[in-house]
């Protein structure tokens, strides 16, 4: 698969270090499923992390391996086998549903502005996780952000002023960026949107947002 838009390396370091929250982790994990280039970067990030452990002085613990095996037997723990999808055939819709624990058939879609529907999976200030469905040609209201925002395209594509984002691409934005994604004319578009704080609309909708405080 031809992935054109990648997250900044900093997100891969966060992923490798294990510091990403649920939603941001799902965006980066989904992108990695399809992007060989970022997987290679992640492998280097993991090797760096591994090296930090390797460089630590060796210390002998009291714990013995037999104790661990006995504890596992007592708790009935078992070895799990991977449910590996063939390389590059991962269906991102299935991936994010499994990762975030929701059912596509049971979502509560609400209408947004013309041609847009939103299903809110999590709505906390530190991290909002939304699914966004846009009809072909639909435009998001122009907006900026209260913090970091990552969008993973799950189906279809959208354009911003200077870029096109297709399946597996990550669109990275923050408080310094104002943009207005527009779904391409050839298909509808489904994306996973994860962001900190609130979207801040500009224009008429922005005025309404400031008056009505939504």
């Amino acid at each position, binding site marked *: 698969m031809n992935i054109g838009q990648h997250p900044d390396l900093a997100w891969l370091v*966060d992923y490798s270090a294990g510091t990403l929250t649920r939603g941001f982790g799902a965006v980066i994990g989904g992108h990695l499923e399809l992007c060989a280039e970022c997987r290679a970067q992640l492998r280097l990030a993991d090797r760096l992390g591994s090296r930090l452990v390797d460089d630590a002085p060796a210390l002998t613990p009291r714990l013995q391996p037999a104790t661990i095996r006995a504890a596992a037997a007592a708790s009935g723990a078992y070895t799990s086998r991977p449910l590996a999808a063939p390389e590059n055939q991962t269906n991102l819709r299935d991936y994010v549903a499994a990762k975030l624990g929701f059912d596509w058939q049971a979502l509560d879609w609400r209408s947004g502005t013309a041609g847009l529907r939103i299903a809110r999976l999590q709505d906390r200030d530190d991290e909002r996780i939304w699914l966004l469905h846009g009809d072909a040609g639909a435009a998001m209201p122009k907006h900026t952000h209260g913090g970091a925002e990552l969008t993973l395209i799950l189906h279809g594509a959208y354009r911003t002023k200077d870029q096109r984002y297709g399946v597996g691409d990550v669109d990275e934005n923050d408080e310094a960026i104002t943009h207005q994604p527009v779904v391409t004319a050839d298909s509808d578009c489904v994306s996973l949107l994860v962001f900190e704080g609130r979207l801040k609309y500009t224009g008429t909708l922005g005025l309404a947002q400031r008056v009505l405080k939504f």
Partner: protein
Amino acid sequence: MTAIALQLFKFAINREPAGRVSLTPVTIKAVTADRIEFETALLLRIGATQDAAAFDALFNALAKKVYGYLIRSGGCTSADGENLLQDIWLTVWTKAGLFDPTRASARTWVFALARHALIDLKRAQSREHGVFETHFAEHADTAGMDEHYAERVDGDKTVAVLQQLAPEQAQVLVMAYVEGKSHREIARELGLPIGTVKSRLRLGFARMRTLLPGPA
């Protein structure tokens, strides 16, 4: 003692024929490819057949490093360290089937479990205390950076490979990997623009690419 050990990490002392002592940067030693392959074979065997002998051999090969990291770099008490070590190796025993040798070596996989377990503990502890450690905020300006970094060296938080980087690059990598902070948290804590943190990570990474040759 710690400071002396770290200086030994940092420099190899070569006695020249004339009897003078010179300091040269230590070279990055590589774990041999044979050893990496052997560990990976052990982990695959655990995943396939839950082979107790393979598990014990892998534990004996890697657990001391993991424990050393939890205690020395992670600053765990021995009680926390032993508990985490048990959780980590219980995961190795029960989830070895998830290991994919095309994505990482066994060493990288096990050490990633260890890093993540440590970071989960640190983040849980910081939530209990309400905030992340804040003393670094006192050193937010770049002028204080070297002193700040030196404190980390004395605190045993840096390791040999990072000594090859510019201090400001090593600093962000330590904060990410050892202290478990995201790049945005690092920017907030150091009072730096996010772009600066990203650029330091990128430069440190580019240098690492030359220092960590070879397969995963």
